[in-house]
């Protein structure tokens, strides 16, 4: 292997620089290269009849044999987690913090073993596991040790969820484990985690860490196997939440499978992230950014910058620089310290990449690869650049999950934003420009959970990571990530006696005083309210509304799917509401309260007429509604973001952005207060909404649009469609241009909404048929509503003169 020194002196070639695999292989051998499951702090006996290989992708040779978990084993793991939850959830934060700290320390102490094992199992370069995966994993445990310590004070209103089922992918095996386990344990939950079947080894080594630090049995359980095992976890009745990272397709299946179960869900899914280079960027640095964006981990990264958008004037020069850079990339043995690209995870993935590249060529794009050849042993694919790609090309739309970059030019910042957002994904984006005005403006307009300015693929435990659109929902990291693992303490949610007016058939109807009946004068016909205009329902039908005494008190439009369509379009067209200053929005919310207050008696009378409550209750509900407008007007300019303390010279800006268009299906109780609360929360932070009032008592909501009209609410910010709630909610749930749906109705309706939302993986917030005390709105509940109304975008802005 050794070339003579004199010869190397002339060629100045790189030689091999291998990291030894021996300690990792010794560890595997000590386990006879065979592993069971880690359940309740014990290892199950491997059953020879259901072992499968974990393979080294760089050689194609098996590394170890792993057990396919059975239903019994998954049951046992969930039971162990359930049992452990009893004490773990009561364990003081400081003690939980000590365990998490110990995990961080153990990962650091055995960092090189983890790094080598990860590289062997996954095929990624040792440089990456050594310098990124493993240190970031340790950092995640450190950071969350701190959250465990602080939970009692910083999340005083929160309680753990219970048993968390966690399913992680093969691209960052230990790091994804850390992202899942650290926050779950910090918040007092216990877990059943399934590593990907292709890369289970570091998770199994981590189980030994749990043993070494004497983590109470059952707090962490690790079961291995393929997607069937994942399904067992997803469908398990004893699991309170599923946290999944993986493909959008599987995420969609999980959304459908868990619909209506009451299981909480967070999904971190695919992406087709844009990498935008303006003509005033530091181009050579942007080239290195591209390398880190798409050739990090062979492009098998959910947030890989796989769509290169280059300003037209510099595109040819940029492509030339890029090709020259690609020629310098080195591919080969992942354990060689001097290679840039390792192996692709497995043959199916390799074939998928090759197939999509073929398709790209067939569709007319220009493909370029470096002149050097890949190793013939193992699963390798060369870095690949496509130019002459149009947005219509398959390779510009689908996630390739490989070292393949597609490039296209743009003319203006506006066009860059439009192209960047021309995708159903929204995980991350990278923007390169030396003009801070331009860069921050574009960052604000990109639909992505993370935007890196003049940098890319930076991660830290202190900053949330997660997607917009079909890249999933929920955040991992930062304080925003903790809320995926807690619920509001029940004692604070429902402390007051119900003050909800009884329904007519509940038998307590009071006859409204005749002089209060709004119907006394000229016939008033509430219409739908769409785009700031009163609209007749498309159906041409009306629905009779009955009062508490059973008498008809009016009619509302029978809205249908076309009305919903129109309302969503109006809401989308009003998106500028989110760009208004928060101060402006607050002023308008106060003004709504002012105008509602002027009609207080009328709104109270309407409540009495509809629900038969006494007038004192009715007045109390109107008063509460006024209070809500003030509450959310107050929040409008105060629910702001943060600057995260990431280990980085720059600002990591955590921005609370509106979700977008939110559908809101209102409950029958509190027919004024419920819609006002939800409406105020949603629009205060800049969302536009399509609201379906109570099916039974819609008139309080329809009465509101006159108030909105007189309060300078821009057309389309609030749209109201009356009619059959669940039918209309389903249209909203399936609508691809609705970003979130809040549903307060039946259990069956909640399940329907969650299931139908899988269409575009919109965020949902449903009540599973539980009623809510609308008269109580604690600080924690306000915060919860505002979280539902926003999505966190983290913008990384490095600086340096």
């Amino acid at each position: 292997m050794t070339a003579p020194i004199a010869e190397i002196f002339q060629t100045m070639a790189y030689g091999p620089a291998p990291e030894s695999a021996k300690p990792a292989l010794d560890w595997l051998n000590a386990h006879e290269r065979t592993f069971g499951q880690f359940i309740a702090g014990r290892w199950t006996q491997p059953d020879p009849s259901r072992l499968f290989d974990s393979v080294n992708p760089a050689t194609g040779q098996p590394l170890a044999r792993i057990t396919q978990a059975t239903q019994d084993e998954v049951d046992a793991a969930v039971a162990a987690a359930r049992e452990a939850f009893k004490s773990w959830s009561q364990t003081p934060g400081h003690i939980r913090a000590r365990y998490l700290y110990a995990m961080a320390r153990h990962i650091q102490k055995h960092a090189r073993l983890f790094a080598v094992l990860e590289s062997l199992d996954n095929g990624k370069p040792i440089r990456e596991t050594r310098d990124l995966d493993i240190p970031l994993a340790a950092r995640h445990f450190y950071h969350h040790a701190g959250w465990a310590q602080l939970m009692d004070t910083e999340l005083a209103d929160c309680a753990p969820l219970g048993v968390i089922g966690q399913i992680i992918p093969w691209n960052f095996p230990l790091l994804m484990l850390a992202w899942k386990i650290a926050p779950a344990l910090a918040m007092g939950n216990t877990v059943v985690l399934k590593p990907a079947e292709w890369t289970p080894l570091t998770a199994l080594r981590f189980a030994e860490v749990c043993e070494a630090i004497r983590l109470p049995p059952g707090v962490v359980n690790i079961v291995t196997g393929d997607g069937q095992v994942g399904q067992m976890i997803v469908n398990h009745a004893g699991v309170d939440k599923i946290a999944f990272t993986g493909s959008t397709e599987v995420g969609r299946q999980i959304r459908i499978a868990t619909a209506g179960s009451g299981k909480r869900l967070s999904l971190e899914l695919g992406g087709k992230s844009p990498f935008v280079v303006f003509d005033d960027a530091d181009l050579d640095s942007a080239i290195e950014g591209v390398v880190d964006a798409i050739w990090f981990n062979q492009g098998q990264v959910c947030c890989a910058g796989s769509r290169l958008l280059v300003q037209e004037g510099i595109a040819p020069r940029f492509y030339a620089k890029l090709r020259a850079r690609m020629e310098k990339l080195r591919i080969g043995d992942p354990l060689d310290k001097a290679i840039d690209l390792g192996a692709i995870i497995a043959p199916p993935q390799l074939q998928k990449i090759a197939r999509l590249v073929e398709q790209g060529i067939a569709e007319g794009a220009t493909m370029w690869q470096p002149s050097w050849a890949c190793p013939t042993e193992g699963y390798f694919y060369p870095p690949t650049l496509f130019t002459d790609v149009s947005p219509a090309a398959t390779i510009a739309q689908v996630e390739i999950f490989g070292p393949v970059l597609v490039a296209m030019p743009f003319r203006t910042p506006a066009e860059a934003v439009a192209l960047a957002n021309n995708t159903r994904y929204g995980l991350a984006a990278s923007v390169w420009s030396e003009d801070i005005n331009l860069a921050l403006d574009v960052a604000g307009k990109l639909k992505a959970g993370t935007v890196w300015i003049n940098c890319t693929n930076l991660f830290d435990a202190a900053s949330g990571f997660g997607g917009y659109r079909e890249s999933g929902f929920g955040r991992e990291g930062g304080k925003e990530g903790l809320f995926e693992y807690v619920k509001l303490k029940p004692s604070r949610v429902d402390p007051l006696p119900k003050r909800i007016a009884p329904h007519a058939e509940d038998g307590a109807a009071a006859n409204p005083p005749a002089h209060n009946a709004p119907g006394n004068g000229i016939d008033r016909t509430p219409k739908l309210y769409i785009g700031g205009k009163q609209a007749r329902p498309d159906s041409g039908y009306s629905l009779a509304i009955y009062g508490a005494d059973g008498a008809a008190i009016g009619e509302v439009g029978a809205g249908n799917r076309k009305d919903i369509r129109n309302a969503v379009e109006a809401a989308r067209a009003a998106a500028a509401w989110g760009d208004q200053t928060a101060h402006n929005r607050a002023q308008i919310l106060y003004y709504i309260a002012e105008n509602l207050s002027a009609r207080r008696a009328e709104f109270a009378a309407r409540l009495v007429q509809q629900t038969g409550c006494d007038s004192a209750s009715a007045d109390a509900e109107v008063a509460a509604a006024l209070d809500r407008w003030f509450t959310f007007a107050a929040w409008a300019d105060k629910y702001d973001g943060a600057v995260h303390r990431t280990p980085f010279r720059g600002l990591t800006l955590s921005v609370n952005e509106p979700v977008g268009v939110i559908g809101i299906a209102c409950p029958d109780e509190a027919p004024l207060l419920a819609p006002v609360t939800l409406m105020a929360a949603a629009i205060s932070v800049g969302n536009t909404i399509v609201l379906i009032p109570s099916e039974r008592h819609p008139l309080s909501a329809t009465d509101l649009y006159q108030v909105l009209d007189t309060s300078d609410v821009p057309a389309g910010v609030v749209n109201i469609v009356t009619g059959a709630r669940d039918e209309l909610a389903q249209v909203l749930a399936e609508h691809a241009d609705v970003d979130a749906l809040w549903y307060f109705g039946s259990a069956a309706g909640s399940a329907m909404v969650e299931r139908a939302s899988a269409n575009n993986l919109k965020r949902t917030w449903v009540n599973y048929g539980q009623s809510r005390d609308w008269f109580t709105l604690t600080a924690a509940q306000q915060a919860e509503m505002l979280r539902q109304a926003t999505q966190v975008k983290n913008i990384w802005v490095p600086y340096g003169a």
Partner: protein
Amino acid sequence: MNTHNGRNPGVPLDLRWVEAARVNRSAVERRAATLPTRRSVKQAWQAAWLLRAITLMDLTTLQGDDTPGNVQRLCAKARRPVRGDLLEALGAHELPIRVAAVCVYHAMVPVAVKALAGSDIPVAAVAAGFPAGLTPLDLRVKEIEYAIEMGAQEIDVVISRRHVLAGNWGALYDEIRAFREACGDAHMKAILEAGELATLRQVYQASLVCMMAGADFIKTSTGKAAVNATLPIGLVMCRAIRDYAARTDHQVGFKPAGGIRAAKQALDWMILIKEELGDEWLRPSLFRFGASALLADIERQLEHHVTGAYSASFRHPMA
């Protein structure tokens, strides 16, 4: 493309190109920090690279207490930088292992020229008001002429940092042009003293203007400032060289100087050159280390490669 021994004739000052320069410090620092983690040279390759490093070295002494005695000693070391038995053991005894040049103050040029007679090792002289560059222009030019008269074949000039800080590119261009003219056939290295420039963008811009004005090499530092050769500065200068070559077809050399003392640092710099400029640049005609103490560490590493045991400085003849 011109040959390695060719000169950079320079091009007219192109202010649009200079003004269009953009350098992002954070991104440059990230690239510079990860370069040595992305490449590693071990064993025989390391030994061979270190031998190459010796041939890329401007063995330097630029001290106020330099005398003919220590300059002569330095020149003797330049001729025989590595113990013969080590070269033999490395299988490198037939390679032309000697340093690229000896770099001294102008007053020491005659001593060095005499000491190196017959060796083909050129003498490089620092000139033009080194290190501050604040003497009158005509005196700086005279200094160059003097050094050449005394037999220097390479001239390391310092630029006027004030022209860079003020964005006075025309003045900088004219100054370097004048130096270049005074240099005649001697190769000219322009020292940016990058540690005294305000931003990395200015480092790039100053590199560009010096190359446009005909510098054969651009050099990071005098070794006399608080910040000398750092990898981020070197990366920016290499990128300027690359851009200049792409646009003009002229290859300009690069010389980091100041603070490069360890063999590992030398390898990092060579990796930077190989990655950013290519193997072509890893020759004395296009790359030099300005170094005094580096050679001693390289000798120890070479002996370690031969014996497998760590070496000590006193085992190697001092400069």
